[in-house]
């Protein structure tokens, strides 16, 4: 039931089928890999998982494979996180830029590289972990990624490896020449007792229609610690589908921070599976949609083994006619005794048009667990506002203070200190409606945030 001006699935896929592409999957196309687009359709609102997120706006555009764009170091520096000393991997429109990146390859096979390079240089490692988390054909976009992604980031930490600095993966989209689709397939493996921090940031170089489709597979082995940060600051006409799948082994620790500041439609899926006992997972998110933006966070935590812990805390401020979705599901298997799971989603709506759909869910089959969930949606507390005003603080400043305070625990949870400082700064600017050069997107791609009032 295609809507007017909406392109068909065949048209959407044509760009990938017209020319032979050297994909990470190895074969060109979806044949013979269990990926069959005849049975996988665009997500639509009759599916529970997509009930509150329509992709119709995305399907108004015919996206093509973009070109790699030359980029100078000065521009890239605008998007580095001030004070963050990191190994950088830089991609533009899905293409890897080796000149602007710091690859690592160390004895014992510690690797920080592009996925395509690892596939070529270390096929044994690549094949062991790529597609090892059963991330494949959850939906149309993950299938598309599996079938046609050509590159991405690959991080391999051997046992006991501790990365001395975080890895910062910078993904730029640029639709200057044509409406562009970029696909990234990331694979992170953290070996036993290893430890690393990863930041993946997304930015636009120009204000054009782009679609960024990311699939990230993460395997956290025994007793390893992995901290993963997603920073989304693409422009107002940029769509993003971002799917993360995490497999955790015994006593491992995975934490994530998903910070969504800009984008037209942004959909984030984080799916966690505890494969063994004693895993800990902490998932944090904050989102500030403005104008008619739509940000959707879907979380699925599968406690399959005993003594697991998971915490989710997601907070959002929704302005103008923007909308947000939070759907967090915790599944506790019968074997997963002594599970501790907590979920919290809190939202502030700034206007009467702003919308949020929040649905924390627990599905528990074990009988000895402690699980909690909660969701609140409200406006700025008028009594608190009056209290601040009665001390001489004007309304806008008072609102900024209260909203920053509302987000403060999620911000304070961010483990990469320079990222925390940057997020604080950007949110303050966001609430005051000030433009920022770089950090989110190039100023040309930035409409500027509307001040709250």
């Amino acid at each position, binding site marked *: 039931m295609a809507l007017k001006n909406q392109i068909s699935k065949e048209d959407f896929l044509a760009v990938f089928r017209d020319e032979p592409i050297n994909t990470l999957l190895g074969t060109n196309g979806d044949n013979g890999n269990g990926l069959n687009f005849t049975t996988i359709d665009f997500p639509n609102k009759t599916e529970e998982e997509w009930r509150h997120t329509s992709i119709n706006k995305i399907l108004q555009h015919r996206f093509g494979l973009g070109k790699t764009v030359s980029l100078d170091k000065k521009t890239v520096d605008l998007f580095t996180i001030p004070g963050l000393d990191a190994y950088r991997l830089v991609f533009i429109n899905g293409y890897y830029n080796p000149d602007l990146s710091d690859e690592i390859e160390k004895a014992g096979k510690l690797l920080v590289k592009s996925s395509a390079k690892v596939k070529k240089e270390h096929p044994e490692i690549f094949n062991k972990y790529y597609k090892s988390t059963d991330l494949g054909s959850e939906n149309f976009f993950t299938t598309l990624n599996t079938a046609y992604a050509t590159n991405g980031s690959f991080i391999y930490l051997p046992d006991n490896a501790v990365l001395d600095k975080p890895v910062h993966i910078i993904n730029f989209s640029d639709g200057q020449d044509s409406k562009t689709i970029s696909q990234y397939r990331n694979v992170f493996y953290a070996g036993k007792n290893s430890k690393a921090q990863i930041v993946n940031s997304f930015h636009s170089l120009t204000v054009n229609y782009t679609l960024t489709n990311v699939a990230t597979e993460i395997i956290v082995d025994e007793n390893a610690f992995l901290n993963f940060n997603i920073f989304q600051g693409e422009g107002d006409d940029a769509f993003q589908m971002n799917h993360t799948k995490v497999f955790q082994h015994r006593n491992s620790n995975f934490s994530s921070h998903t910070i969504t500041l800009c984008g037209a439609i942004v959909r984030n899926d984080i799916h966690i599976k505890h494969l063994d006992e004693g895993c800990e997972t902490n998932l944090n998110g904050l989102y500030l949609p403005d104008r008619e933006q739509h940000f959707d966070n879907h979380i699925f935590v599968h406690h399959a083994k005993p003594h697991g812990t998971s915490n989710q805390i997601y907070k959002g401020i929704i302005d103008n006619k923007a909308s947000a979705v939070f759907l967090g599901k915790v599944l506790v298997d019968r074997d997963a005794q002594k599970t501790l799971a907590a979920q919290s989603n809190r939202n502030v709506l700034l206007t009467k048009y702003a919308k949020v759909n929040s649905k924390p869910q627990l599905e528990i089959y074990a009988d000895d667990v402690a699980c909690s969930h909660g969701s609140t949606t409200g406006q700025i*507390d*008028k*009594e*608190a506002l*009056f*209290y*601040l*005003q*009665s*001390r*001489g*603080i*004007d*309304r806008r*400043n*008072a609102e900024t*203070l*209260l909203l*920053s*305070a*509302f987000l*403060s*625990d999620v911000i304070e949870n961010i483990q990469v200190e320079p990222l925390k400082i940057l997020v604080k700064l950007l949110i303050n600017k966001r609430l005051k409606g000030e433009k920022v050069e770089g950090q989110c997107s190039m100023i040309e791609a930035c409409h500027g945030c509307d001040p709250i009032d």
Partner: protein
Amino acid sequence: MGKTLLKIENLNATIEGKSILKGINLEIKEGEVHAIMGPNGSGKSTLASVLAGREIFEVTDGHVEFMGKDLLSMAPEERSREGVFLAFQYPIEIPGVSITNFMKAAVSQHREHKGLEPLSPSEFLKLMKEKKELVEIEAKLANRAVNEGFSGGEKKKNEVFQMAMLEPKLAILDETDSGLDIDALRIVANGVNKLKNSENATLVITHYQRLLDYIVPDVVHVLYDGKIVKTGGKELALELEEKGYDWIKKEVQV
């Protein structure tokens, strides 16, 4: 005699259509301490809220002049910067905002209003320290979120601390004594007394005479059913304590 700070004429206010204040007249001069007493529901807290600019009350008639300016036309923040301070009966908890950040924002907007340079961080911390000592507030309290998890006494002390930071011309204490034990009451009253001078004024709103042993008023008003029905010296408070509010009710009905 000092200059007139506050002049209330025929003030009428309603909440959700219900009439609460029914023609208040009151004049407060520099250097004076006024007390407003009255039974529960007489309109004491409404008067405090209307003067501070709480939006849920609607002023239906009357006029309030503060230092020659029309107070009712000002936003709550302007009233504060002009020198009106309300110590809340129930101070609001604000999780995530530290007292230091709160006061930094308030002091900077007060200074900007007066055309003064912003304080440097060290000057600001010095001011905080000085005022904390003045009102005997524990130093560590300032690093906590505003009123979050504070005891009743701590909340009231925090109100007086904010008052010390902002140095208002007119301080309105709305039942600041309620819920305080005698030690906390003494500390709070002491703080208020230290801040008193010949150029500012204090309006103490209370149900009990107890507070007035510590903050001695020049004038005592009795508010009943939205009107000031009796005005006298500090001995009026003692008389009320002795005879109870029924005495006033009877007198008004006669």
